[in-house]
């Protein structure tokens, strides 16, 4: 076979594949073991959520948008609530802003620990996967105690939050954080010093600061390449104004750096949570919010665990948004995987992909139900709602 023919050998990965935790379709062109080209096709979990907001009022839309992602649901509701509040010229009370950030940081801990497990699994280090997921239960329990839910916490309301932090919560959070801090020190030691693990991460998928800038990557992926980009620092929102974040960066730009940035960010989250608990403002949890929002448009950016989450919201004077645009952090980061893949060994692809902490359901935003017998049915919102009511009756 000539090298030209070899170059045209294309290996599809996905949409269903053991190395992918969520559906996405990648196509890699390979020359022997070396990747020469890569492309992606998303949308396997596209639900038309942006369109969905056009037919729902602001309150309903917030519940829908919170379901863009099952891991970082709280940041979506926070970005939307902050944006709509700005359009309505309403400001949530300080206690609500502090609780938003507190839940947001607990969510970041949960997300980073989940990622650590997945990435360790991709590297073939299943013990680390089991350790990190076992320890992650600590923060899941805390979130459940505060909000009543393990995922889709629904802590936000337009104009505030719906859950308070009691003295008992505070004690539980402090105990949980102390335990996790100890465990995190162990993780940092493992990813920095374990010789076998380093062979999968050190010098793999190197992205220079220039490349990171050019590819427009965000979040820990950018910070691991020395690009100090963090919305919590660049444009502080909610209680981050009173509790400045120390940005964590690494310079190596490889997979090892991406591990270190995320794990070091956990320590920063623990510090922030303690600072917020030490200085929790007194007062109301909510403020009055008008149902109709005057015409206007705003951009709301928050730092999700995976990077900058961007919301564009346009109101038209009614109780329904004219347009809600969501750009999740995985989309720009996904482009970096395609660019970085070229020149790497094919066997590094799952790790390279895991390195950006991809979230496909965030990316893909029709309700299609495959009924037994193979008929695809389309349900209206009303039918689905009725089904939900009857299911729980």
């Amino acid at each position, binding site marked *: 076979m000539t090298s030209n023919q070899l170059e045209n050998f294309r290996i599809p990965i996905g949409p269903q594949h053991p190395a992918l935790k969520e559906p996405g379709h990648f196509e890699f062109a390979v020359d022997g073991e070396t990747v020469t080209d890569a492309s992606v096709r998303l949308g396997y979990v596209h639900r038309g959520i942006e369109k969905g907001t056009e037919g729902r009022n602001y309150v309903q839309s917030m519940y829908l948008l919170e379901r863009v992602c099952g891991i970082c649901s709280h940041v979506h509701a926070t970005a939307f609530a902050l944006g709509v509040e700005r359009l309505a010229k309403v400001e949530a009370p300080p206690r609500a802003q502090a609780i938003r950030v507190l839940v947001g940081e607990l969510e970041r801990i949960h997300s980073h620990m989940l990622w650590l497990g997945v990435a360790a699994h991709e590297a073939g280090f299943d013990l680390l996967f089991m350790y990190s997921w076992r320890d992650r239960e600590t923060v899941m329990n805390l979130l459940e105690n505060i909000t009543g839910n393990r995922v889709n916490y629904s802590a936000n309301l337009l104009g505030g939050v719906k859950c308070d932090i009691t003295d008992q919560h505070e004690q539980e959070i402090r105990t949980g954080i102390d335990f996790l801090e100890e465990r995190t020190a162990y993780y940092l030691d493992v990813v920095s010093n374990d010789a076998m693990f380093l062979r999968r991460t050190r010098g793999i998928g190197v992205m220079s600061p220039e490349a990171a800038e050019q*590819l*427009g990557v965000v979040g820990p992926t950018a910070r691991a390449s020395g690009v100090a980009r963090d919305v919590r620092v660049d*444009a502080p929102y909610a209680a981050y104004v009173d509790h400045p974040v120390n940005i964590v960066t690494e310079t190596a730009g490889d997979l090892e750096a991406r591990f270190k940035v995320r794990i070091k960010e956990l320590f920063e989250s623990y510090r922030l949570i303690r600072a917020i608990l030490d200085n929790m403002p007194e007062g109301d949890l909510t403020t009055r919010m008008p149902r109709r929002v005057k015409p*206007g448009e705003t951009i709301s*950016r928050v730092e999700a665990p995976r990077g*900058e989450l961007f919301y564009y919201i346009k109101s038209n004077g009614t109780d329904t948004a004219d*347009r809600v645009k969501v750009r999740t952090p995985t989309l720009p980061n996904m482009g970096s995987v395609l660019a970085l893949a070229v020149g790497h060994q094919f066997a590094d692809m799952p790790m390279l992909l895991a390195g950006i902490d991809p979230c496909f359901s965030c990316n893909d935003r029709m309700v299609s139900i495959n009924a037994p017998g193979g008929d695809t049915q*389309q349900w209206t919102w009303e039918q689905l709602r009725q089904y939900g009511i009857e299911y729980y009756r």
Partner: protein
Amino acid sequence: MSTSTPEQVTTPTSELNPNLQTAADLVTNHAAETTTPEPNRLDAVIDAAALVDVVQALVDARWGYLSTITGVDLGVEADQLEMLYHFCEGADILTLRVRVPRCGGVVPSVCGAIPSASMYERELIEMFGITVTDTPNAERLFLPEDWPDGVYPLLKDFSMDQLS
């Protein structure tokens, strides 16, 4: 569906912060109009023909990064789509607003200056039915393979009947 234009406040250029002032200087030659809807934002209305030059100027000056491209349907009556190119630098956001007709709208690709814009352009093409000239990949990104041609879900007059 309402097509009202958002409330906009024009701030004198002397009140812009230094960061946004730099952005304003970069786009001023091509912008038909600039407004400051919020203190950290600058909006510039740009003609589609000038888009590539403006984007190249921002990239050359290393002003911010392209955060995303938002498509907005201004409604059947207005018969226009608006493409918003959001550039972020710290807390500041520069938005280039490009208006095109609702049917047969054409914008040039900015991938020459910003290769990572490809994903955003693919999304615009499949959701709004515009043509992006010279974009490296015009294939579908999110919509299913069996989605009918010529049906664009983020247009205001989209209805589920178009799918059957």
